[in-house]
């Protein structure tokens, strides 16, 4: 599970390739979990909502940002 709280991503150390991942947004503001690389994932999570998305099949480290709040960033480790 990935939690977004106080404009920060709280991510597990690793996520299995292709796993269905829950994203919980504890903030009032909406956020996205967007891969910085072209053609990557882009998940929108409204304030206070929970959504799921399927992690990439390819192992590796994916830099992520929130497109609404570019100062928010993190690394999603698939492996």
């Amino acid at each position, binding site marked *: 599970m990935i939690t977004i709280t*106080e*404009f*920060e991503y709280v991510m597990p150390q690793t996520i299995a390739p292709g796993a269905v991942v829950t994203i919980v947004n504890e*903030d*009032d*503001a*909406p956020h996205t979990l967007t891969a910085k690389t072209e053609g990557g994932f882009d998940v929108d999570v*409204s*304030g206070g909502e929970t959504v799921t998305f399927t992690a990439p099949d390819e192992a590796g480290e994916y830099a992520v940002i929130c*497109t*609404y*709040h570019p*100062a*928010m960033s993190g690394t999603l480790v698939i492996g």
Partner: protein
Amino acid sequence: MLMIVLRVLIGVGLMVSAVIHLQLASGFQQAAPSGIGGGALFRIQAVVSILAAAYVLIRGSRAAFAIAAIVALSALAAVVLYRYVQVPAIGPIPSMYEPVWYPQKALTAVAEAFAGTLAVIGYVLLLRRRNDT
């Protein structure tokens, strides 16, 4: 009686804006950390809103209506500007571009528009009364 109703409604609008800014402040310190930080700016805005609300509720003078209008409409201008324009950091003011509306943000904009409009109406009514006497 009309002026008392106006003052109360303006006070409520400014307080709604203040409370929402205080609620969002800690997150926006993370989201916009440059300069003094978005959170610090939100807290300053909230304090100024509370002071303007108290002033218009206690005094009800033209100056009080004018200050309430300036505080509410400047806050409204800021939220609309940063929603649609990617303004860079300017001195201590961080870049707070946030290209999305959500309930709390929309509510604070409506409250500021409401308070600002009523404050302008109150100011004009007092000005007319003064000119009539």
